[in-house]
């Protein structure tokens, strides 16, 4: 078992441009069932052996796809999410970085109640080791196992997964939820999935400065989680008022500092690693 995706996931790629094609090929080689691509105007053709459709709806009807990965540029990405939701997909993973925040606020309000889970935007995607790769993660560093990994960042997720694999901890599913201020699924949403997943025995959560998603996660963990959670918060030395790369990584109005998040998580019984080098070691110390 795993969360969000596995061997049976039938994946579409929205946006078969250079990046979309590049990563589709890597995912196919990894064993992911990529059943179609969506590229308006190129319906009926094939790109790298993947049948292309004009709309998501046509692609779903023809292939029975249940999930989609979105590589559409920022100006059209919110629209692509709405199209995925309209076509009745179960899951959309939006990789696109740079979507205006107001577009995402509207999009999230519009897809609420549709039943579609949105991961991202501005995220590296989801990998269930040796089963399914959605997005841009280097799946080779993962290994099947029972630790769930959820993070707001990309390469820092790889860092944590790499540490886990080296210490012998395999993963159930690894995912990045995105570095923007408004994202489809929050830590709380994903923690709930990991808690309910029989294959997940522990969770590694990697937060960062900005917003209050980690504080909300702490409340959720305290009230609802039976599985151990290990955390790291990036940006402990970030200056206030400066955006640290991610649109959502900013301490503003005295809110969103790493120290507050660490305190909240520790109060909820989470083992927080102060050093990014000791994320997996912190988990090992719990066993």
């Amino acid at each position, binding site marked *: 078992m795993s969360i969000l995706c596995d061997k049976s996931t039938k994946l579409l790629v929205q946006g078969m441009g250079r990046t979309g094609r590049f990563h589709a090929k890597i995912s196919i080689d990894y064993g992911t069932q990529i059943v179609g691509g969506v590229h308006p105007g190129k319906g009926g053709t094939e790109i790298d052996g993947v049948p292309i459709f004009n709309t998501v709806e046509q692609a779903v009807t023809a292939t029975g796809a249940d999930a989609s990965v979105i590589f559409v540029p920022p100006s059209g990405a919110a629209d692509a999410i709405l199209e995925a939701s309209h076509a009745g997909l179960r899951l959309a993973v939006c990789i696109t970085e740079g979507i205006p*925040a107001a577009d995402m606020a509207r999009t999230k309000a519009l897809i609420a109640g549709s039943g579609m889970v949105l991961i991202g935007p501005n995220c590296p995607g989801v990998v269930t080791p040796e089963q399914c790769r959605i997005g841009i993660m280097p799946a080779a*560093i993962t290994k099947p196992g029972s630790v769930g990994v959820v993070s*707001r960042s990309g390469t820092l997720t790889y860092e944590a997964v*790499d540490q886990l694999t080296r210490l012998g901890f395999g993963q159930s599913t690894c995912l990045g939820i995105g570095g923007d201020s*408004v994202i489809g699924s929050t830590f709380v949403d994903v923690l709930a999935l990991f808690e309910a997943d029989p294959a997940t025995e522990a969770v590694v959560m990697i937060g960062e400065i900005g917003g*209050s998603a980690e504080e909300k996660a702490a409340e959720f963990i305290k009230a609802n989680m039976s599985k151990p959670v290990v955390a790291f918060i990036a940006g402990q030395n970030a200056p206030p008022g*400066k955006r640290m790369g991610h649109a959502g990584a900013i301490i503003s109005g005295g809110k969103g500092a790493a120290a507050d998040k660490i305190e909240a998580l520790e109060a909820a019984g989470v083992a927080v690693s102060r*050093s*990014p*080098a000791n994320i997996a070691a912190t988990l090992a110390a719990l066993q």
Partner: protein
Amino acid sequence: MNVHEYQAKVLFREYGVAVPEGDLATTADEARDVAERLGSEVTVVKAQVHAGGRGKGGGIKLARSPEEARQHAEEILGMILVTKQTGTEGKRVRKVYVEGGCKIARELYLAITLDRESEQFAVIASTAGGMDIEEVAAATPEKIHNVLVDPVAGLSSWQSRALGFKLDLDGNQVKRFDVFLSGLYRLFVEKDASLIEINPLVVTEAGDLLALDGKLNFDDNALYRHPEIAALRDPEEEDVLERTAAEMDFSYVGLNGNIGCMVNGAGLAMATLDMISQAGGSPANFLDVGGDADKTRIENAFKLILRDGEVRAMLVNIFGGIVRGDLIAEGVVAAIGSVGPSVPLVVRLQGTNAEQGRRILAESALDIQSAETLQDAADKVVAAATQGS
């Protein structure tokens, strides 16, 4: 992206948001001419810099005659204005805004922003105008009123009216407030602002509502569809290195330390700063070189980091995911060859083909310390920076 008060007020007028009459001046004589043209009893000469707290820093002065406006402008133009938002180095004033004075009955606060908690737009208003809103929130939270606006449905008149009455406005003033706030909300949405803040919003003795100050920030991600807003960017207000970095498409934040950092990915870059600080060092910058860290980008990043004269040692921390470690190592070697960095260099490569990458670095005959783990990398670069300073 931030804009100046005078630019914000041009946009306010466009959207029917009432502001006092005023105009921009870049010389003292121009300031006198503007004051003369306004013909009001009192004028206000205001320094135009991207920072709050200008009044306390001596950047805002009252003039009772055009000649006095000229004198104030002469003092303010060219001064280094230090406020609590500029840091101790302050900001040079290059422009002043000269504005007609008004008879103030009450000072209020009004702002619109995207509330991350609710993922809705938030209108924030307070009867304690002219004060730091964070201080008001801490000391007298009952004076702050929040209205959440569904981003799909938009702001309704009843919401504006309800908020107006909470601000103790009378019936006529509430009607004006409705017009004022709906204009402001349209501006926020149509131009993709991330923050509009009016502090103070004044009620004049005649009962009019006027935006006496205006702070306007825009969502950088939406600038592509607002070229007219992007054109308001004032490069003089931006840090030179941060501006150059933005032109090279890097995320860069200048810091006060002496260890230059080049990392791929924002999260890993933040974690690298944490790591250096915990090892007893002090980072000079945050820099995300991005996913495709090829030779040209690495070369540009080296040049950028070395423009900071404080840098005594450098750490390159790249997690090769899709981009293989051996290719990154070749890029690093080539970039070092062409840039020739003058400070000790620690390179940590991890991920796909990292071992081959490390071998390429070792065989390059360049003076590079290679590191395998984050801890090792941080310890080595901190030691190098200590020796180098």
